[in-house]
């Protein structure tokens, strides 16, 4: 059968999806690392939020990071588009559904990747408007001076946001869904890329579980500590 130039096998799509997803996980760790700095209270050597603001300034201006930012957006877009394409094909593969279905034993969260994915996707857009675009446009972000240099007080933006309980709850709930996505995601990459081994698969599954707890919990700490702590 003749195929169009765009034909890509199901497996190729999965490789791309897996690599993009793995890249997104590494991004989440970097993102978490920097975000946690916002919780640093001032000391003799630096002011409150100083570390975070300097790090955010670096992330917003460094050329290498800027390039990576494009790669990151690309990674998200590719992961999301492929996620939808694969899922739509999957739905089409069973036009008539069962009356009584899904009583088979399966890995629990793998069945809901598109649902947790869509939740993350919607959150992503809201999140970008909450912080990223505000930080880029700098409309209502205050300036601060450390060692005679001007910085934007992005930390204050974060702390202001999380004074509202509704906001804190929203973030915490979304992060739980991120955990569900990650629980299946990390170990799944190795199956998709054929990098499995009977000896290491249980280890990878444990790492997957740990990641799915550590990352959401780490991000959750920020709104919770800001709201309940004295910030």
């Amino acid at each position, binding site marked *: 059968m003749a195929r169009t130039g765009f034909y890509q*096998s199901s*497996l190729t799509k999965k490789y791309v999806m897996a690599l993009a997803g793995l890249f997104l996980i590494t991004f989440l760790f970097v993102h978490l690392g920097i975000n946690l700095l916002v919780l640093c209270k001032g000391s003799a050597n630096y002011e409150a939020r100083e570390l975070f603001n300097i790090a955010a300034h670096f992330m917003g201006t460094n050329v290498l990071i800027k390039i990576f930012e494009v790669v990151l957006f690309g990674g998200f877009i590719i992961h999301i588009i492929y996620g939808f394409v694969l899922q739509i094909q999957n739905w089409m593969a*069973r036009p008539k559904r069962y*009356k009584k279905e899904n009583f*088979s034993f399966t890995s629990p969260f793998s069945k809901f990747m598109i649902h947790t994915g869509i939740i993350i996707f919607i959150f992503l857009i809201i999140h970008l408007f909450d912080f990223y675009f505000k930080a880029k446009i700098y409309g209502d972000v205050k300036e601060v001076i450390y060692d005679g240099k001007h910085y934007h007080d992005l930390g204050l933006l974060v702390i202001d946001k999380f004074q509202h309980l509704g906001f804190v709850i929203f973030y915490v709930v979304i992060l739980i869904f991120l955990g569900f996505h990650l629980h299946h995601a990390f170990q799944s990459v190795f199956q*998709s890329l054929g990098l499995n081994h009977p000896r290491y698969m249980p280890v990878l599954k444990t790492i997957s579980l740990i990641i799915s707890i550590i990352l959401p919990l780490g991000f959750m700490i920020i709104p919770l500590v800001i709201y309940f702590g004295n910030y």
Partner: protein
Amino acid sequence: MNLTLKIWRQKDAKAKGKFVTYKINDISPDCSFLEMLDILNEQLVEKDEEPVAFDHDCREGICGTCSLYINGRPHGPDEAVTTCQLHMRKFKDGDTIVIEPWRAKPFPVIKDLIVDRYAFDKIIQAGGYISVNTGGVPDANAIPVPKEKADLSMDAASCIGCGACVAACKNASAMLFVSAKVSQLALLPQGKTEAKRRVQKMVAKMDELGFGNCTNTYACEAECPKEISVENIARMNREFLGAKIGGNKKEK
């Protein structure tokens, strides 16, 4: 045992089809599931009604002909058996049993509970073979094969092509079947020669026929009557990636 059966009835491939409820009484727990359906059909014939069409052949779990999606699970509630090896003792007196055909776009219903599984043959035709001339019987150990590879290959080769993996998969993906057929050959020296071409052709055919994509959910492995491992899927992913990167033939 007295049971209520909700069975998918469909006159032919074109008909719309619907569930019909049947009551059946005095079934022995030692009866097999297909025998229970035989009894139902006898009763239907006596009443001058059309018997329920279902696939079966060997009735000893080796041919892969029987199917049936029973109460949300291919081949019913027992582990690692085909429907013909399923017994009524796995059900309780008074149970309602929902019986459906395999549901997948590449497996169209022909009549009632029978689906057309020719799609699997087409995948095999695309590459599930080795090209050698037949001749005299070759010397048994002329080509050394490591024991562990031979074992893995045998395990993969135990696939009977029943299609339960496709029926179980929420995406109607045929990855477990295709990967078993790729693996049984790729693991052996005789199959290595054509391995790169084979995996690409079989995957391309699988996609073309409209099977879904794998999300590593592993319902296939849970329901496979021959307990084919999802490690075969990973092996196929690896083989395919290797063929794409290292093979000189383009995927087509």
